[in-house]
């Protein structure tokens, strides 16, 4: 069954596959993970906050007057940050990643140009566009993970922080978030493994990641079977190894007695 295939094509293209393809995939994964977790944590904090227009601006007399009106009042008191973050997360989670990739690839330059008031769309390369796409998309998923993490920290920690005279940002930064990260580390890493696999979707833009590189070789030499099987095996080995590491990490940081 497996005879008649040219397995040498794999060996011949190894340098190209790994130097061009895999480095793109790994770099994209690492950077998107970092940016995604940072942005996701911010989103999580936004979702858990009760900041509203009223709470931020209640010092201004005009705002207090408007807030007394029947229609405007609830609007001004609504938790604005939480709703905005929630809408963003729900939007990103309802739409296929492929569609988000297309959105960002074609539209980030336009939006960037609008934002900085340029006369032309700004130039964004393939890598930057993919990075923005994956960071913003995964931020929604990291947000949900971090939200669960922050909510799992007993409120007493927060009160203790305030009792010590720390403000909100100091409490979050030095007391809550470090614990939340530690608790959710395995889930965050599992999500990163999913991100690693999802980066293969940049194929739809013709970008040369690991799958894209293998695909180019496969189509040029007509060796679809060999190259795609090889790609599957490599992804399998890497993902399996990474999830094995995550399982070991989970066992190590588990606190006996706590779930």
């Amino acid at each position, binding site marked *: 069954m497996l005879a008649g295939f040219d397995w040498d094509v794999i060996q011949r293209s190894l340098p190209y596959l790994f130097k061009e393809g895999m480095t793109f995939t790994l770099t994209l994964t690492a950077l998107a993970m970092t940016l995604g977790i940072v942005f996701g944590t911010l989103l999580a904090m936004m979702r858990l906050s009760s900041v509203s227009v009223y709470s931020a601006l209640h010092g201004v007399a005009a705002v207090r007057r408007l807030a007394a009106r029947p229609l405007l009042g609830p609007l001004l008191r609504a938790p604005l940050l939480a709703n905005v973050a929630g809408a963003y997360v729900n939007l990103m989670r309802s*739409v*296929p990643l*492929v569609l988000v990739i297309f959105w960002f690839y074609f539209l980030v330059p336009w939006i960037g*140009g609008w934002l900085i008031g340029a006369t032309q769309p700004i130039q964004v390369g393939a890598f930057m566009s993919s990075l923005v796409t994956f960071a913003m998309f995964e931020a929604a998923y990291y947000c949900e993970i971090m939200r669960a993490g922050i909510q799992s920290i007993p409120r007493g920690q927060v009160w203790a922080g305030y009792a010590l005279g720390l403000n909100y940002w100091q409490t979050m930064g030095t007391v809550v978030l470090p614990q939340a990260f530690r608790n959710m580390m395995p889930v965050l890493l599992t999500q990163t493994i999913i991100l690693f696999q999802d980066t293969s979707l940049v194929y739809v833009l013709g970008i040369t990641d690991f799958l894209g590189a293998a695909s180019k070789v496969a189509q040029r030499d007509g060796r679809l079977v060999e190259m*795609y099987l090889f790609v*599957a095996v490599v992804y399998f080995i890497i993902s399996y190894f990474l999830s094995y590491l995550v399982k070991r990490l989970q066992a190590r940081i588990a606190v006996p007695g706590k779930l």
Partner: protein
Amino acid sequence: MKYNWNWGIFWQPAADASGTWLHYLLVGIVWTLGTALAAWVIALALGSVIGVLRTTPRAWAVRLGNAYVELFRNIPLLVQMFLWFFVLPELVPKGLGDWIKQMPPPWSAYLPAVLCLGFYTSARVAEQVRAGIQSLPVGQRMAGTAMGLTLPQTYRHVLLPQAYRIVLPPLTSEFLNIIKNSAVALTIGLMELTARARSIQEFTFQVFEAFTAATILYLAINIVVVLGMRWVERRLAVPGLIAAGGAAQAGH
């Protein structure tokens, strides 16, 4: 900025003369849901079997189930799609391979997409089913044995009815995932919703309009599915069975 807005593009005739562009886009929903539902049937069936296998007392069954789940979870969906579409017809006997390749589109893309999504999601469903069964008190299984039920009967009458109710929320999440993942099938030529939005963009150059329409349609599908599943949950709920919180949910 110099983008030419043209929302009226949707009322203009499509390039393949099948109707307006809007009609062309809406047919995409039919393909998306058709692929997702067919794949979901496969995923539920296979996933339940594998999930059950992983909770039986037989070591070989557990190992088999684990291997199955690891295989489908560690290869990206797009790579699996390519394996089903490009590689499978070349690996099976020549007659069968040629017959597969001669299938006319859209079935040439539909069948591999359904199989790929079905198997990929079945691994995740297996995980959910396993988590559901293992979250049940071990006394349930013992009570089944005490009442004289065989192992299959215990699963059928005691464990699975409870387990499914517990994991209904994560299963809803998996169903939504399968709808989103159906978009990956555009790489093998299945003209579902995202593919059609792309096609509109290629023919008419109206990037914003095409993708906005597709996004709104995906949001609408999402809302309908979530509301539908909530109704199903209410109908199937057994009072007092599910404690507050239910089974654990992971991201994605």
